[in-house]
């Protein structure tokens, strides 16, 4: 009788009710090792890798790839790596399975642990330093002796690496550090099969051939004596579509066959694409927002010449500079701190005012829009905001955002300036009360004194939820924001 356990849809975060099994990374009946990636599971806005917490094997994969399953629902039958359950046993287990209460599903039976990042790191309390005595004639260097005494390292257990077994500073330092295990899981390298071994090709070419699924026998080598080289393999590899940049995206493998950027159905036909769960989430939230929230728009033109000057200084000083958007995030953070009536969420007949400006920054990914949050933007420097935005955008593009990194927030910024859009209005990201739309900077004539001059102007538009924010309140906010952007000394001070 094999020991069968349930492998259920995990629950990541309080809001998660269902998940899509985007891809099984293991096969039925094939044992896996602890740490192997078992499946990619997609929720509203993220794709997570499910790691094996122990060696094991799935005699049955219940969930179909692409299928949506409730949290706690059985998606596979789990057993030990060396067990051989009969088909009857497995089907009896499947039919007898009852989902656990979803609130505790993540702790049930064989369901996987929450993603590793969520696990709290337990740090051992530092041990008190022991006093050690080192014989005056010990074979140890003076610096090593001092270190051993300082750190309380017993030198009796140390084998010296110096001349004649003398204990060096380095020896003591290493002995004072916690033991670490050398090595780890084996490095994945492309298998060199018998057929690959016989082909006259460079090792790199062979590896690339395996990675890209190119048959080496179909190639003519252009290297020395007709050796197949890297360029030969790459010439055969079709250019990858942008989608391939996110390896965890389940669509990437099918999209890879289509030519880049111009993928479209044959003339005269229409292709039916099922909405991804992310697409569905966007559609649901924004339909609700645009149809139920009374939007109004406040538009303003702001000069960004001063910000451009600061950027140039930062670039000259450090070699890199925050983006215009980073300055605008900072300006919004400060303006929200001064106008808490705009820093709100609307929940039914309640208005929640926040003490911290948590600003959602819209990031376009190949799968759709996502809005990671810069938390406490009113307390962060422009440089810190810049780093934060970069890190969040990178996580968003690779589908690695944690739910708490994109759920919540008290205000949003959407910037389409990089696409050359002069001006636009954005839909409020509920339950937030307002969103700022930022266009591209352009050189425009302005009147200064009685003379005509040129300035770099950005058009900004604030979409407000009139249920919570009145025109005058929004307008006061915009006046403060304009002041901060045009006098950015206030931003960096």
């Amino acid at each position, binding site marked *: 009788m094999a020991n069968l356990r349930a492998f259920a849809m995990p629950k990541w975060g309080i809001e998660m009710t269902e998940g899509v099994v985007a891809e099984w990374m293991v096969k039925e009946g094939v044992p896996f090792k602890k740490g192997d990636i078992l499946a990619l599971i997609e929720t509203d806005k993220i794709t997570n890798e499910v790691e094996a917490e122990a060696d094991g094997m799935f005699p049955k994969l219940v969930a179909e790839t692409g299928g949506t399953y409730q949290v706690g629902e059985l998606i596979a039958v789990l057993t030990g790596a060396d067990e051989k359950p009969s088909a009857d046993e497995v089907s009896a287990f499947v039919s007898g399975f009852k989902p656990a209460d979803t609130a505790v599903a993540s702790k049930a039976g064989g369901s996987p642990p929450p993603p590793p990042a969520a696990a709290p790191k337990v740090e051992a309390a530092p041990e008190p330093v022991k006093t050690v005595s080192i014989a005056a004639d010990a074979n140890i*260097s003076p610096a090593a002796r001092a270190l051993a005494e300082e750190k309380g390292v017993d030198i009796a257990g140390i084998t010296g690496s110096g*001349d004649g077994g003398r204990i060096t500073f380095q020896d003591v330092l290493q002995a004072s550090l916690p033991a670490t295990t050398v090595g780890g899981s084996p490095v994945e390298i492309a298998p060199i099969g018998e057929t690959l071994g016989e082909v006259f090709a460079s090792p790199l070419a062979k590896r690339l051939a395996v990675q890209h699924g190119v048959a080496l026998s179909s190639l003519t080598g252009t290297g020395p004596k007709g050796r197949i080289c890297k360029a030969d393999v790459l010439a055969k590899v079709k250019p990858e579509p942008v989608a391939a940049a996110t390896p965890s995206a389940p669509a990437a493998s099918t999209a890879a066959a289509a030519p880049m950027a111009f993928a479209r159905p044959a003339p005269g036909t229409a292709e039916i694409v099922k909405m991804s769960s992310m697409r569905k989430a966007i559609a649901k939230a924004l339909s609700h927002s645009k149809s139920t929230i009374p939007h109004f728009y406040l538009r303003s033109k702001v000069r960004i010449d001063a910000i451009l000057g600061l950027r140039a200084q930062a670039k000259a000083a450090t070699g890199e500079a925050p983006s215009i958007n980073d300055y605008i995030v900072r300006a919004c953070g400060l303006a929200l701190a001064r106008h808490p009536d705009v820093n709100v969420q609307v929940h039914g007949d309640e208005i929640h005012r926040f003490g911290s400006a948590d600003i959602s920054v819209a990031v376009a990914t190949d799968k759709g829009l996502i809005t990671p949050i810069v938390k406490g933007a009113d307390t962060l420097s422009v440089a810190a905001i810049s780093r934060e935005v970069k890190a969040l955008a990178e996580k968003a593009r690779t589908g690695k955002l944690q739910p708490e990194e994109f759920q919540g927030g008290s205000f949003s910024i959407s910037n389409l300036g990089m696409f050359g859009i002069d001006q636009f209005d954005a839909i409020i990201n509920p339950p937030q009360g307002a969103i700022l739309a930022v266009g591209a900077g352009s050189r425009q004539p302005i009147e200064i004194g009685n003379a005509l001059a040129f300035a770099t102007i950005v058009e900004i538009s604030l979409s407000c939820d009139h249920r919570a924010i009145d025109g005058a309140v929004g307008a006061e906010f915009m006046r403060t924001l304009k002041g901060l952007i045009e006098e950015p000394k206030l931003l960096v001070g």
Partner: protein
Amino acid sequence: MARQMIRDVIRDTIDAEMARDENVIMLGEDIVGGMGSPGGPEAIGGIWGTSGGLWAKYGSDRVIDTPISESAIIGAAAGASLTGKRAIAEIMFADFIGVCMDQIWNQVAKFRYMFGGKSKCPIVIRMPYGAGYNAAPQHSQSIHAMVTAMPGLKVVMPTTAADVKGLLTTAIRDDDPVIFLEHKALYGVKGEVPDGEYLIPFGHARQVTQGDDVTILATGMMVGFAEKAAAQLAQDGIGCDLLDLRTTSPLDEEAIMDSVERTGRLLIVDEAPPRCSFATDLSALVANKAFASLKAPIEMVTGPHSPVPFARELESAYVPSPDKIVAAAVKAMSYRRG
């Protein structure tokens, strides 16, 4: 205590050892110093002036002028040493080592090992080496890395007059083959020499200057340059722990580690070209055994990967100078992590 030129210290030390032990003999090209010349057998005293007067004192049986055959010099000296003599062989220029390499590398260095430790070959091979003498590529090289790399040989590179006396005495009395490298440019340098019997054990570096900021390792003529550089660096508030290594084999690893663990910075000055050199060897040693102590990358000031040029200007550009040493020390001090 007497003040003497290094070439005279060498002659006096050999003299003292020949007087002390009748088994000590000398072989080399023109070491009698004028045999067949109108002024008499000792008119010149050898081209380096390191053996004047010894032939008159000890005779042709113990001070032997040889044909121009380095292979024969080392072969004869090695054979004599195997039978109980203590031969001091002189190779007029270290650059000629190639001619007698089989005798040194495959014979002299191997006897003790290949005969089960039952034979010994107490030979001292003196070799003038080094650039700065405007002697062109075939007479200016520093060959210490090559011989240091050979197990079975001890390699000495003295710097001061006192060290020449102490180390040469130890070399002659040592039962193993010793390569005694004398920098040509130092022969005329004067220094205080202790009176009476004076021995310095091998494998003990000499602390030249003390400081807490940069460890400088040097040998031979480079020690003086590094000392000048250290004085200049001291003016700028940079303390140099300068070690004259004295012997490259055995190596005073202990002194090196102690110093590097204290200063965290290492600068190696070596006259030889930089590839597969004594400098890279020291660098690897410290990187391997004192990595945790290092605060900056190890700096090396060496000659370029090129033969020693003949033209005076080029030769002085070739040899490491105090200025280059100062610049490298400042570079190590200016290094910032991250």
